């Protein structure tokens, strides 16, 4: 009998397994697929050309994975943040760096200064917010002196920002990224450059209020990326969890979380076996956990409603393209580029969002690209997130999306079509099938103002424990969400240990 049974062997599941095993728990992790890693697992498209997973990056929340000492398992962290190229063709690209330095060569001085000021405001604001957001969300109803003291401490550190910054932070958080970008910048590309992180995992367009909250959350929490991307992170986490004694099982699909009068008693695995455990930590999304894995008759009051209304409307398809040679991007002026966003103004993003909003494929998509080369001199793998793609597609939808991706790449890098070695396109429905993601939503539910932090996935479950005794949530459906792998798993494991 295990102390804890973890459902799902993605980054969150593995991080939780390692954390719990270190705390002395006997851990059994069940992964449905044949390999660990979930969305961060790589797959070979062509000989020597493997993806870094279906995500665009694998940057865990800052500091949260430190205690796992993954460096001991061979992981190396990058110190640089690859700049983002904003371009939709061969010319007029803007290479946006997190550090404002290189922006002075590309922008008029006044605009570069505004960008520098904006970056330093973000840096000022995010440090007190970070402390709050790298912990379990607070209990609003607590009367416990310890909890109240912690809350007061956070409130005080926010106030230390001073009137002006604090007002500004509170003003901006519920805003639309379109409005904020227009307040600050005049360059359409720069406005568009700050939007992708604000829109990641939402049906919202840039004009939707609350998109700034997603952006601030991401700015506050995004940590360094590992060399080798998702697969390297998965390998290190796997080694770490195993070293600490966690049992990691693949090809073990959880079919039901078994309950009795006292709460969780175990997990039934496909094939009929039962893994007995008084505690289950599910890294499956909220809807799948509550609606597919728990007997509906045993769900507590309102839990079914909460899970049913959990918003998970997909807007993104994943297209992997293996190229025989690394793509040249003239818009970057010869500089090496790993990240590209094809939206050169906010209007394009707004229009793309209008498609899925009305339940149809957007007439024009925009894409984010991640380019990596497995080795010096080798070909390259381009992973694209094509936005404006709903769950329900007409016949031939997958082909349409793939064709858009190839055309997009061809616009950015003429001739790339002729160098395609292999492609792999996953619509939201494919992602649902492959990864068990309800609605095919890459982040386990939309990142939208009412589904963040305290409300992710519902007030009653946002502190990782659920109203079902012994059942914890530790996937992208809980804070800090699906864009920052590992964070939810670690925080859930900590919540479980602290009881």
């Amino acid at each position, binding site marked *: 009998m295990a102390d804890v049974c973890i459902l799902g062997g993605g980054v969150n599941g593995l991080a939780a397994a390692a954390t719990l095993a270190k705390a002395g728990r006997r851990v059994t992790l069940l992964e449905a697929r044949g390999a660990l890693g979930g969305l961060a697992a790589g797959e070979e498209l062509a000989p020597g050309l493997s993806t870094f997973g279906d995500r665009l990056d694998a940057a865990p929340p800052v500091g949260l994975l430190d205690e796992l000492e993954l460096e001991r398992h061979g992981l190396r962290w990058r110190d640089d943040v690859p700049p983002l190229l904003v371009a939709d063709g061969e010319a007029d690209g803007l290479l946006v760096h997190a550090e404002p330095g290189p922006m002075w060569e590309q922008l008029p001085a006044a605009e570069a200064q505004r960008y520098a000021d904006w970056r330093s405001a973000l840096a000022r604001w995010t440090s007190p917010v970070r402390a709050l957001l790298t912990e379990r969300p607070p209990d*609003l*109803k607590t009367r416990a002196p310890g909890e109240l003291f912690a809350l007061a401490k956070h409130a005080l550190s926010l106030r230390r920002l001073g*009137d002006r910054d604090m007002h500004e932070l509170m003003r901006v958080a*519920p*805003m639309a990224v379109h409005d904020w970008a227009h307040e600050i910048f005049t360059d359409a590309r720069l406005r568009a450059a700050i939007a992708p992180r604000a829109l990641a995992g939402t049906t919202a367009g840039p004009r939707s209020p609350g998109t700034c909250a997603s952006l601030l959350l991401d700015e506050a929490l995004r940590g360094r990326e590992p060399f080798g991307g998702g697969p390297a992170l998965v390998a290190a986490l796997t080694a770490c969890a195993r070293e600490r004694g966690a049992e990691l099982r693949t090809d073990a699909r959880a079919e039901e979380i078994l309950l009795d009068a006292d709460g969780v008693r175990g997990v039934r695995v496909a094939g009929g076996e039962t893994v007995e455990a008084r505690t289950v930590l599910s890294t499956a999304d909220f809807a799948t956990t509550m609606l597919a894995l728990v007997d509906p008759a045993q769900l507590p009051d309102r839990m079914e409603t909460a899970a049913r209304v959990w918003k998970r409307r997909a807007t993104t398809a994943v297209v992997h393209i293996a190229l025989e040679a690394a793509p040249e991007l003239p818009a970057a002026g010869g500089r090496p580029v790993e990240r590209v966003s094809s939206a050169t103004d906010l209007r394009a993003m707004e229009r793309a969002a209008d498609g899925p909003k009305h339940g149809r494929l957007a007439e024009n998509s925009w894409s984010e690209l991640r380019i990596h080369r497995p080795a010096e001199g080798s070909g390259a793998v381009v992973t694209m997130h094509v936005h404006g793609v709903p769950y329900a597609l007409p016949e031939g939808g997958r082909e349409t999306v793939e064709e858009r991706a190839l055309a997009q790449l061809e616009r950015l890098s003429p001739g790339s079509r002729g160098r395609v070695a292999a492609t792999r396109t996953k619509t939201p429905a494919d992602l649902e099938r492959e990864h068990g993601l309800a609605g095919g939503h890459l982040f386990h539910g939309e990142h939208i*103002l*009412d589904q963040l932090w305290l409300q992710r996935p*519902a007030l009653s479950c946002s502190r990782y424990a659920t109203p079902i005794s012994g059942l914890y949530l530790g996937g992208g459906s809980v804070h800090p969400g699906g864009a920052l792998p590992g964070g939810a798993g670690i925080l859930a494991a900590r919540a479980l240990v602290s009881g």
Partner: protein
Amino acid sequence: MQTWDAIVVGGGHNGLACAAYLAKAGKKVLVLERRHVLGGAAVSEEVFPGFTYSVCSYVVSLLRPWIIRDLELARFGLQLIPLESSFSPSREGTGLCRWADAARTRDEISRFSRNDAELYPEFGLAMMQMARFAKPVIDAPAPDPSSFSPRDLIQLLRLGNHFQDTDPDGLALRLKLMTMSSADLLDEWFESDVLKAPMSVSGIIGTMLGVRSPGTAYVMLHHYMGEIDGAFRSWGFARGGTGAVSCAIADAARHFGATIRTEAPVDKILVSGGQATGVVLKDGEELRAREVVSGCDPRLTFLGFVGRDHLPDDFVQQVERFRYRGSSGKVNLALDRLPSFPGREGFEHLRGDLAVAPGVDYLESAYDDAKEGRFSKHPYINIVFPSTCDPSVAPPGKHVMSCFVQYAPYELAEELGGPAGWPDQREAFGDAVCDTVEELAPGFKDSILHRQVLTPWDLEQEFGLTEGNIFHGELSLEQLAFLRPAAGWSRYRTPVKKLWLAGSGAHPGGGIMGAPGALCAKAMLGGAR
């Protein structure tokens, strides 16, 4: 030269309410109104002989009961006639009508969904409970979370305490209301589009947002604050049009000793040594006062009347970025007869309001047009026929029809000429509205005797509403409470000493509420606190 205790710039309902409270406290007050009629956007005018329009705002919902009592408005002629129903027609079928009578409403809704019919009263109850929580917020100045003053801290602690005293479901709903879109919130409760659509629109009134935009659920809640006494009780017409509200407040102010001048357009607010000292009228006349109050919106007040030279730079920056983005227009019609909607006999369903909101997707598409800088081809229209309840506004047998129309974005697309292109689009906009109604009520267009079309451009030109925003600035989360109209300046004071803001651009915002004006007066009378 006479020195007034206070001069109020703008004779809208808030400016008048402020003046009435000041006069009641014994102050010598002068109100200056640019137009020939009082009321600002709460105004009744006989635009065509025999037909009196509530030209801009058209229903009375949130007028604070304590203001009605304090100023004895009933004594000064205020009569509110409750709206009796809310009808949303559809192209197919007979549409949905919600009645003051709950049983009748249940029957109507259950034609579409039994489930919705059962949940509808429950939802109303939940929202009313939420409204009870929000009510103290709109009846007092907004606390500032960055402040260390005991006053703010106590207010904040009370708010925190309130959270702890609420049951978990109520707490969850409260958080959702603050963050969700109105359509998403309704999706959690109901299944029938015909019910959700007309309910969701109350979240977008006056904003450049769609029913699927987060933050709109909170605005929807405002709608329920007007329904505290039960179904449709305190939503109503003022007899004689919404101008009658302003006139009653003006009469109260005069009764308490205030002086009111119309056709007295202010050119400048005089500032000397960082302190307001009076105003100059357009004709050059100078008037002195110990304190100056503006009932106009923040941009007109600070950048128009005061001038940036008298203001700190960071305040100017905040005033400049305060968003208006008017998104609505108004079409006022004189009718030969009431329109007839297929499947609905008689005219009982026209004694309330009528919402052209046949579906959530329809509304969201209307917003899509506006995002591209066009008025909606198929807009959301909120219609009332005040003449069905108030014979004073139309000749016998004839009717007035007031159409509030969204979206009509102030910022028209460049190819349409931007905001200044509106005069050329005015009639096309009016046609789109009439055509949309015609589709629902065939033969309607033949009944039109006169038509007045007000675009956001007209609202700015004629009523001084910046960018045509009916609420003196969008009611969006980042422009509410302690951020309205600028961080640190939500308590009606301004960076100019002795200058106060009493319009809808101050907390708690727009609508015929009277709260900003009255709370401003109270802050002034509270003195040096």
